[in-house]
């Protein structure tokens, strides 16, 4: 019996057992390599719809607090901070989140996420409106949909080609993809307009609002960042997500159980590509332009730095890393020579990788373990 049939049988059987009263069945752990304790679901017997129960399960005080702060922030901070620091951090965080998802939950470290974002950005510039004659001037919603679609398809292709590699080889082949795309954008003039790139790629005026103004753009980025965050949290609890984590931990055993390892990995690439594509559209709208310099090797490594800085064990790590990165980038020239900005970032990154491979979240967990009293919350094997 294949794993899928087994799962269906288990869930179907319970559904029959629960009767036709519409009571949802108890969630079953799909694979034999469940990481962490079996989920005890306090809301199992209630009548509320599934999404509401999901929210009740996931949200806690700190979530509500953060959300409240994020909502209030633009009204107390200057437009500069809202736009250049906060919105940029959210957009970069979304792209880094795709890497965190792939790396933390899929075990695949891909350096091509920024390139996928760049592909979406370029597609949007080419299909939509810009100041270059090459642009096709499609209506914005059509251009956005196609841009995201094209980038996701490209991410899937990258995934399919990279799927049989592992570890360092994956890093190298995705780096190669990224560099190839950079040179393609740099040297092709008919489609990508070479070194100059595309200028004046702005978000549209919709519902009487100019979405590039600091406040609307901040809320747009916040919406998509939250969507990405909750999407990741939801996906890792679905059968697909848990199977993916199983593939990360022990691919041979999963294959022996009947799971299609290659399909799971390619699907992970596709999901991450979709997130990066949305981040890419937002990034182009933030910058108002896209050039080969936006997708060069430096940026590919920056996204890795952001993801590792925050910690790849939890989706919030990507946003933490992004905030720190943007703050350093913006204010380094006031504190130290802007010229040595790379040195500071490099040293910080090095320190974190040497002493706390789980990034800032790992540091935080270690501190809590040292001074806190609740081991279950901070146990390193507990993935949440």
């Amino acid at each position: 019996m294949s794993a899928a049939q087994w799962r269906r049988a288990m869930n179907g059987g319970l559904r029959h057992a629960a009767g036709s009263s519409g009571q949802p069945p108890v969630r079953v752990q799909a694979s034999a390599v469940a990481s962490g304790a079996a989920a005890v679901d306090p809301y199992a017997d209630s009548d509320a719809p599934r999404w509401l129960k999901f929210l009740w399960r996931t949200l806690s005080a700190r979530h509500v607090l953060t959300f409240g702060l994020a909502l209030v922030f633009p009204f107390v901070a200057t437009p500069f901070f809202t736009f250049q620091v906060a919105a940029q951090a959210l957009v970069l965080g979304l792209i880094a989140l795709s890497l965190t998802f792939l790396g933390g939950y899929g075990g695949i470290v891909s350096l091509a996420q920024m390139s996928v974002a760049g592909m979406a950005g370029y597609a949007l510039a080419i299909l939509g409106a810009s100041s270059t004659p090459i642009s096709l001037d499609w209506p914005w919603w059509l251009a956005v949909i196609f841009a995201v679609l094209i980038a996701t398809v490209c991410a899937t292709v990258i995934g399919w080609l990279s799927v049989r590699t592992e570890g360092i080889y994956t890093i190298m082949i995705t780096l190669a993809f990224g560099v190839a795309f950079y040179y393609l954008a740099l040297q092709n003039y008919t489609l990508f307009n070479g070194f100059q790139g595309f200028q004046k790629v702005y978000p549209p005026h919709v519902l009487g609002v100019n979405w590039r103004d600091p406040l609307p753009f901040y809320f747009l980025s916040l919406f998509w960042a939250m969507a990405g965050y909750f999407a990741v949290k939801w996906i890792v609890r679905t059968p697909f997500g848990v199977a993916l984590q199983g593939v990360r931990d022990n691919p041979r055993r999963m294959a022996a159980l009947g799971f299609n390892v290659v399909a799971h990995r390619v699907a992970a690439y596709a999901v991450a590509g979709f997130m990066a594509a949305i981040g890419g559209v937002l990034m182009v709208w933030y910058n108002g332009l896209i050039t080969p310099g936006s997708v060069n090797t430096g940026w590919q490594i920056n996204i890795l730095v952001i993801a590792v800085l925050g910690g790849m064990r939890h989706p919030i790590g990507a946003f933490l890393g992004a905030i720190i990165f943007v703050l350093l980038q913006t204010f380094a020239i006031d504190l130290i020579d802007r010229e040595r900005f790379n040195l500071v970032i490099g040293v910080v990154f090095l320190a974190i990788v040497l002493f706390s491979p789980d990034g800032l979240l790992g540091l935080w967990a270690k501190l809590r373990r040292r001074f806190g009293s609740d081991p279950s919350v901070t146990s390193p094997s507990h993935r949440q």
Partner: protein
Amino acid sequence: MIEETTVKMTKRIWIHSVVGAATAAALTSVAWAQGAPVKIGVLATLEGPFAAGGADGMRGAELAIRQRGGVVAGRKIEMVRASSNANPDVAVNAVRKLVEQDKVDLVVGPLSGGEGIAVKDYSKTQPNMTFINGGSGAQATTLQNPSPNFFRFNTEGAQWMVGLGKAAVDKGYKRVMVIAEDYAFPYSQVQGFMSEFCRLGGKVPVKAWVPLGGKDYSSVIARIPKDVDALLVVLGGADAVNFLNQYEAAGGDKPMMGGSITVSQDVLNYRGKRRDSLVGTISAGPYADSFDGADWKAFVADYQKNYPVSAGGYPSPSLFALVYYTNMKAALDALEQVKGDLSGGQAKYREALSKLELKMPTGTVKLDSNRQAIGTTFVTEVVKDSKGDLTTRVLRKVDNVDQMLGMKREEFQMGSRDVPACP
């Protein structure tokens, strides 16, 4: 009784102190408003490929400020630095920080061509701020969709090559091969050369566009046809030395013509066997090391005094120092003209800038209707001096070079890979 007196006294003291404080406040506020420092943001590429040029650009801008003693129209000048790395998105972020976070009064910058276009687009969203160019030299910045508050007091890449075409024909070069890097600045340089050269009957059979950053010219050298008279090499100085090395090693022997940044100190210090064949290389640009003008000599001396080699300066100011100096000087001269008055959305200031006749070390500069400079170009030639070292001398000085290069607007086409063409 005593309470009454005390109250009266207190009241008197109170009134006196209030009046005194008010007067003091009024006096100081007037004085303060008059002497309120003017913050000028300066953006240059302090990281990345043009880092050395960016540092010299900062020095040039600082020199213009130092020449005025740090004060303009009674106001102290505060220079706020920002850095980019030749990437347009980094440049826009840096400018946005200058304008919205550091709250500068005007911006001088950026350095590279692609950044210039992006900053020009940003300037349209800040109509009450004045942006003056730093060093960027792309044609499109002021030719396509110019911005009403972006001013450029330096001539651009194509203007820098005016006069070279005629000099090439005078030397007897009828067929020339072009070797240049594949991006906007070399396109405009080649366009500036070819529009004159082709009009005078010259032919360019092959244009070899080298990918940016490439250092291996062996393939390009292998493609040089046997029947060209000279090579027009539009590469940076250091890349030109690489090219010369590889060309000499491959047994080549054709004379060379240089773009504006090609015949630099690196090339003049070339120690290979072909050194002597470099004598007679012609080139063109916005300045010449050996120019005899009094203003130029004073500028060079001033630069060398303020930034000796021991403190990190170059032996002689580079192109970047000159253009940043020019633009900053224009900013300060116009500020002096309006007596430091930047009120009313800086409208009066911009008016003064548009009409400014700037006296800079190589001549006078005026602005055209797109706020682009009309200036002077020098055609130079490499000669050997009495000590046997290579240096340049001025062949010809061309004044009043405008962005249309003397052509009619209908005839003019912006430089690109295939335009102009005369095979």
